[in-house]
């Protein structure tokens, strides 16, 4: 099991290096000169060239990558071309809202979707199972941002129950923070729940056909215990993998939700940086996001070992 985890950790480090290269070159090779964007339309060509040299943008990309990588590894992600603030600082400010949004949404999605999927699987022969599954499929097809806008109209504009935008840090006001997070979390969960329900349902139906479920029934175990003790843990093994893959959906969904609800998170930071060719910030955002993705998947590998003794034995 130690070897298993070491192997996965080594893989994670390799992945991060590849991502760093991608993050750097994808931005460095993109058309458009950041110096020109920075100086605006009125700048003379001579001025643009001077600033380009000043920013080190006249060096070949490979050289720039090595410099960037060295700085990054020593913990310096550079300075924003736009606000001239350190990228580290910008990321540190943007991370808490995004983490809160993403983790809460994932938690809500898991709490809603796993029991729902299990119940749908166990009752797959009941009359209400088909319509409910169809509803879930419908949920997959509904765009999340549209749901977000509907929620703003009903909950904020008409009913005036919840704020429509903005983020209140937890340190300032707990109740204000929670109120500001309700609609974004609901919106982002709606991205995640339907596909997860469908996945859990299919996985659990598969597990229900296993011999050990028959064994449990032949033992006289109650259906609820069979679902909880035998079906759920075995379903979880495949579901956890799927949740890791869903992280991509979570991240892209978070960007949309942050923009809709004006949350000053990583997604919005990244989007503004892209629009303004603020390369250091874009690179920082991509790197942090990728690191989060890799770390969560590493955590999932560790979780396997907790659930499945066959993995522990490796």
């Amino acid at each position, binding site marked *: 099991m130690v070897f298993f985890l070491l192997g996965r950790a080594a893989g994670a480090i390799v992945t991060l290096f590849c991502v760093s290269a991608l993050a750097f070159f994808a931005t460095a090779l993109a058309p458009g000169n950041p110096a020109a964007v920075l100086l605006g339309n009125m700048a003379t060509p001579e001025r643009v060239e001077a600033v380009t040299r000043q920013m080190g943008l006249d060096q070949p990309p490979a050289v720039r990558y090595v410099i960037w990588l060295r700085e990054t590894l020593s913990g310096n992600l550079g300075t924003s071309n736009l606000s001239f603030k350190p990228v580290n600082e910008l990321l540190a400010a943007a991370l808490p809202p995004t983490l809160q949004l993403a983790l809460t949404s994932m938690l809500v999605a898991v709490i809603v979707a796993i029991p729902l999927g299990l119940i749908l699987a166990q009752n797959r022969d009941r009359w209400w199972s088909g319509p409910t599954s169809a509803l879930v499929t419908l949920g997959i097809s509904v765009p999340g941002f549209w749901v977000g806008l509907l929620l703003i109209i009903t909950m904020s504009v008409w009913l005036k129950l919840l704020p429509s935008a903005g983020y209140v840090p937890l340190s300032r006001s707990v109740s204000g923070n929670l109120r500001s997070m309700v609609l974004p979390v609901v919106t982002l969960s709606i991205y995640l729940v339907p596909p997860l329900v469908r996945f859990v349902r299919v996985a659990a139906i598969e597990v229900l056909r296993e011999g050990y479920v028959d064994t449990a029934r032949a033992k*006289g175990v109650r259906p609820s215990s069979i679902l909880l003790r035998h079906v759920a843990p075995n379903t979880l093994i495949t579901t956890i993998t799927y949740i890791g893959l869903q992280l991509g959906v979570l991240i892209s969904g978070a960007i949309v939700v942050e923009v809709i609800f004006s949350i000053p998170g990583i997604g919005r930071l990244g989007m503004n940086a892209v629009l303004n060719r603020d390369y250091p910030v874009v690179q920082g955002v991509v790197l942090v996001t990728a690191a989060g993705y890799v770390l969560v998947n590493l955590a999932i590998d560790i979780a396997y070992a907790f659930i499945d003794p066959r993995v522990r034995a490796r």
Partner: protein
Amino acid sequence: MAERLLNVRNLDVVLGREPGATTLVRDLSFSLDAGELLCIVGESGCGKTITARSVIGLNRTDPRFRLTGAIDFDGRNLLDLDERAMRQIRGARIAMIFQDPMSSLNPLHRISAQIDEALAIHTDLGKAARRARVLELLAAVGIPKPETRIDAYPHQFSGGMRQRAMIALALAGDPDLLIADEPTTALDVTTQKQILLLLARLRAETGMAVIFITHDLGVVAEIADRVLVMYAGQCVESGPVADVFRNPQHPYTAGLLASIPAANRGKVRRLASIKGAPPVLSEGRPVGCAFRPRCDYAFDRCADEPQLTATGSPDHPARCWLSGAARHSLAGQGAPA
């Protein structure tokens, strides 16, 4: 026929709804005394497993199945019991072991926990007492050094060991009836023999009745008191094992007997087999006798469905139109070459 342990009467198991429903088990009746070992034999797909699952009630809550008739167990019709009452019988009074020991144990739970679960449901024992009982059970099924193996996971056991653990699990509730659905089919030959001997010994020790499902007539000869031969969801012949083996009354039984491989068989003769394959019941049941398309003895009358009727020897009915004299010639020779 008062007070037999198990008395199945006119059991029909239908899969699906009309139209297109398939009768998987048809008008099946058999009974079992306490301590008796009944073998149900037949090819794959003839309804053996469905019958077993119906007795222990694994398919009763499945809305695709419809069960009619009666399954009297210890004086109560199991088909009339609600699921709650049935759960108290399952694992306690009727237990079951399955064909594939690789999949019949939960890979995520320790062996001890899986046996303990049955004990926790069906006994009043405390935690420590249950653990002691698990050790006893593992020792009883011949797991060496059970105290070192009790907390193993299924993947740490070989196939034979898993089947032993499965048997220990089945014995946890001290059942009156054990249903063994081809428990040795997935095992290698030497392990098969060990598991058979184990089951025979446990049956002698506990006095439980056993329904043993197999397609291996060699096994039947070794362990059975009585045999029930199934074909296309029906009983085609049943009786005491010696009687059925010596005087098969149905061409299907005779064909099965003739196709037992024997080490001492002459090299010249090819191993006999029954031509064709059993009918796929979902595609329609053959008119008349279901075995007619494969039967070498078929004649005009077989277009009508034969009933299970008494033959010369006691407690040995068969479902065949052949005359007594013609049936007599079935013995020993099996299907004609």
